[in-house]
């Protein structure tokens, strides 16, 4: 399974929560994998690029529509919009959007990220919207973009949210746009005929969650520095599996923080 050991740590206070989240994602990605960033969310982009520069010289990094390798590039400036043609200066290849979405075979080796308005105990998630009474929507969300199709096929994906609250973590999603572990159990995805490996971790501003092996229900894996276990439990709208020992999320090493601040995020988006 992916995952790197964490040799030494800085005092956690020196890294921002977003830097911590990016570092966690980075350490879970292996050299040689395809990291499919898709839309350009700062923490996910930073996590992918940190992995690439820190331990992934053979990673295939797909940011927006490019396929690239930036191992020898000193600084990757953040570009905000998916279609920014100037991102071509870092690209080795540039693909049509329909090819990227339709031809899923190469996604079998991809690592992918899924945002959500709601997440249920089995990691099924919703980007479609919130149901209304007497109307389809109380709130129409942004929609699934390509997450439905990509998450069906990718090697594994990470759920990522900017808010950890009972309105995000719900017993039942109003709509499901991306299947996690369906109705639960390690065979849930196979039963649905979904070839991809499913969600592996859920990364939030309070904690890292994983999935209990048998039930595939969300379980607390670690809490971020300064966050109490009770706080995470109280902000989750369903019973969270809490193991006896809950560690603190590992802080970035000086080397990781240096790469993040000097080469990946010189603008400091993760420190705002």
């Amino acid at each position: 399974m992916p995952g790197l050991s964490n040799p030494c740590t800085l005092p956690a206070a020196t890294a921002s929560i977003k830097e911590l989240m990016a570092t966690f994602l980075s350490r879970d990605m292996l050299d040689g994998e395809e990291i499919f960033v898709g839309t350009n969310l700062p923490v996910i982009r930073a996590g992918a690029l940190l992995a690439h520069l820190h331990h992934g010289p053979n990673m295939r990094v797909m940011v927006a529509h490019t396929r690239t390798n930036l191992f020898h590039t000193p600084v990757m400036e953040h570009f905000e919009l998916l279609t920014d043609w100037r991102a071509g200066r870092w690209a080795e290849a540039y693909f049509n959007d329909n090819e990227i979405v339709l031809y899923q075979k190469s996604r079998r080796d991809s690592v992918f990220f899924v945002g959500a308005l709601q997440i249920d105990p089995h990691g099924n998630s919703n980007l479609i919207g919130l149901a209304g009474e007497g109307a389809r929507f109380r709130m129409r969300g942004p929609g699934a973009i390509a997450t439905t199709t990509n998450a069906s096929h990718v090697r594994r994906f990470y759920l990522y949210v900017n808010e950890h609250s009972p309105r995000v973590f719900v017993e039942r999603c109003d709509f499901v746009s991306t299947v996690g572990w369906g109705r639960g159990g390690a065979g849930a995805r196979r039963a649905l005929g979904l070839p991809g490996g499913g969600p592996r971790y859920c990364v939030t501003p309070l904690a890292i969650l994983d999935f209990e092996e048998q039930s595939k229900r969300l379980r607390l894996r670690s809490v971020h520095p300064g966050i109490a276990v009770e706080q995470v439990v109280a902000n989750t709208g369903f019973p969270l599996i809490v193991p006896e020992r809950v560690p603190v999320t590992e802080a970035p090493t000086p080397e990781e923080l240096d790469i993040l601040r000097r080469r990946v995020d010189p603008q400091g988006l993760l420190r705002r």
Partner: protein
Amino acid sequence: MMDSHLSAGSAPETVERRPVVVEEGALAEWLRSGMCVALGGLATSCHAMVAVRHMIRRGLRDLTVIGSAVGGLDVDLLIGAGCVRKVISPYVGAEALAPIGPFFRAAAERGEIEVWECDEGQYYAGLQAAAQMLPFMPCRGGVGTSYPELNPDLKLFTDPVRRQTLLAVPALEPDVALLHAAHADAYGNVQFVGTGYADRLLWRAATRTLVQVERIVPNEEIRRSPERTALLAHGVMRAPFGAHPFSSPGFYIEDREHIRELVEAGRVFSKIGDRGPFEVYLDRYIHRPETHIDYLETVGLRRLLSLHEY
């Protein structure tokens, strides 16, 4: 007796190749109420804005709009102006500049437009089916989700080969695809700077395709690199800065100030129901300028020339 489409001696005196250049004034022949219109580009780039503004100016109604896979504020503008009955697009917005199109959101929540709910995989499967002249295309993305429930056109079925459960996505066939590209010759040979996003698939799926271009170039220039010709348009229209306020790779970046003005007008409407600022926008940028050149003069040369890529 010989059976031939062209009987001997029937060719007219002069046989000339016919250009397919469309003047802005002739757009009305291409577009009318009730049509299914596909809009090319992606997110904040390369939308056929001369055609979009034309449709609003003419007050077209009941359009089915197939926005791009990451549909932009071109779709939102048409919804706000009341031109749209149904939207087929996995997303309508402008990323960080407007995470969701304000008119799209309001109309979807109030049930004022029909939204053909889909993700990008289902969206492209439908276009692919149309391009291949098939009734549907199978798609795996969406199995186990709410999509078949939200969109009854997406039908779960058991495939006859491997007995897998898949979604059947019906063909999405636009009457006309409206695209914006870098350049073309007068005969409809279109070339992009950049990938062209999914514009080639829209062209393949649509009955007819009209492409706005930054430049119409001589045929010789196309022949210099024919491998770059991405699609063959039924009509090409000369439209420098024709994607404004959105970007056009190789020519200009998006006009953020203008986009903010549009988004702000939309937000005032969606927050407090006041259409005032949006009506001011429509009046200033769409109804008063009678032509694309008038529009560009309203935006102003100084602004347009500030939108460089370096």
